[in-house]
């Protein structure tokens, strides 16, 4: 099966990005421009990485960039991770998709631009679910989100590292899946989601990795009053995923971390993407690269559509 897939970038691309990140990190830390750099370092298994926060220029050599750099590091700048977020100005390695999350957090006044130094990566793509840790980045192993990426060359970063080599056209697997769902009858869609949500174990990985799930008190943890069941039964699972999608509507920037982190392979981004599309249609809003003060559900226009209201 693998022989039909072509490798997307040779090692020199990743080596160049890695080097540029290290050089930039050394410069930033030794000049004292930033207090820390949030990046990736090699994990124990071949091809894997772990997020890391570096404060010492001598450790810059630990940083890497590889097709395994799947994490959206913006998570470590949020209130949810306030205990580890270094004080002062911080540099962060961000792919185009991660930068959307940064823009969203800036818009929601969770971050201050002047306290941020964004090292943008011109990104070929990262590996998706099902790709083995040792496998290369190919047309077969690339993540679903990367197949439809529109932000390979990040804009608005303080510095951009790497140059994206020419890439083939990808079939939009996720868009096709979304269209397939939309063409179903409500009963079929209900069966689809019921099947997926019934597998949910409420490990909360989807919430914990989401840069926008920074609430100190999550609605789903509340018990007085209880807004939704906390037990991982099909009923509570369905409610949780509906609430999650609703709370991210107009905010989610599509990094798909929720879907990646889900140990039960629930295609969560289909929900996020559906909501993003509806908000684009309704209010011409798109979670983009530019921070905006108000999202589509925190503002209104008098002439908004109300054809569904009697």
């Amino acid at each position, binding site marked *: 099966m693998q022989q039909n897939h072509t490798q997307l970038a040779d090692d020199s691309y990743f080596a160049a990005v890695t080097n540029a990140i290290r050089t930039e990190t050394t410069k930033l830390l030794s000049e004292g421009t930033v207090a820390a750099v949030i990046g990736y370092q090699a994990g124990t298994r071949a091809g894997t990485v772990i997020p890391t926060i570096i404060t010492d220029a001598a450790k810059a050599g630990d940083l890497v960039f590889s097709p395994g750099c799947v994490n959206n590091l913006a998570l470590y700048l949020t209130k949810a991770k306030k205990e580890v977020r270094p004080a002062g100005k911080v540099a962060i390695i961000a792919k185009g998709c991660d930068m959307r999350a940064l823009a969203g957090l800036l818009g929601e006044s969770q971050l201050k631009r002047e306290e941020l130094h964004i090292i943008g990566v011109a990104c070929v793509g990262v590996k998706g679910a099902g790709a083995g840790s040792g496998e290369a980045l190919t047309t077969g192993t690339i993540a679903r989100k990367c197949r439809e990426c529109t932000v390979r060359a990040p804009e608005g970063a303080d510095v951009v590292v790497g140059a994206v080599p020419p890439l083939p056209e990808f079939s939009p697997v996720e868009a096709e899946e979304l269209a397939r769902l939309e063409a179903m009858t409500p009963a079929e869609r209900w069966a689809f989601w*019921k099947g997926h949500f019934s597998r949910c174990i409420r490990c909360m990985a989807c919430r914990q990795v989401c840069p926008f799930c920074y609430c100190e008190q999550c609605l789903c943890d509340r018990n007085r009053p209880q807004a939704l069941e906390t037990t991982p039964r099909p009923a509570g699972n369905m409610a949780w995923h509906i609430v999650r999608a609703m709370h991210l509507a107009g905010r989610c920037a599509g990094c798909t971390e929720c879907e990646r982190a889900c140990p039960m392979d629930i295609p969560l981004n289909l929900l996020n993407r559906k909501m993003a599309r509806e908000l684009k249609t309704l209010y011409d809003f798109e979670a983009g690269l530019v921070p905006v003060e108000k999202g589509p559900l925190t503002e209104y226009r008098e002439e908004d559509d109300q054809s569904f209201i009697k």
Partner: protein
Amino acid sequence: MEHDFEPKIVAFVCTWCTYAGADLAGTSRMQYPSNVRVLKFPCTGRIDPVFILRAFQKGTDGVLVSGCHPGDCHYMAGNFHARRRFAAFRQLLEFIGVDLNRLQFSWVSAAEGGKWVEVVTELTERVRAMGPMVEFKELEMEEHWSGKLDSPELKEAYQNI
């Protein structure tokens, strides 16, 4: 008139307009289906989508959300915000597989007792024709295989929940 099925309808209404409108319908001795259970909120802006979800989970067959006409909000813009929120939420529900015919939104002012009657009657009859909302109720009864109960007493106790 006797019906085989009497749907449960939950109406989330704002206190300033729709509640007063419903009140007017009552004091004017207008008739409307007693299927509707009215829940009063300060403003449609206070009505969280979770309430709707919860109502379906707990056994309602139809939901009505109703408040002040645009421009009439007691808090200036609560209904404008609600309008966007529910426009989005109904798309989400539909995507999950909920038939949107069970969910109605309306603007009913304090003077529109007649419109209240009309909205409630129409929704009740529509939902009656659709039959009971079984999806969420069935889900509520479902267990993960590992926690399924097989003893008859428990099953019975469960049915009663």
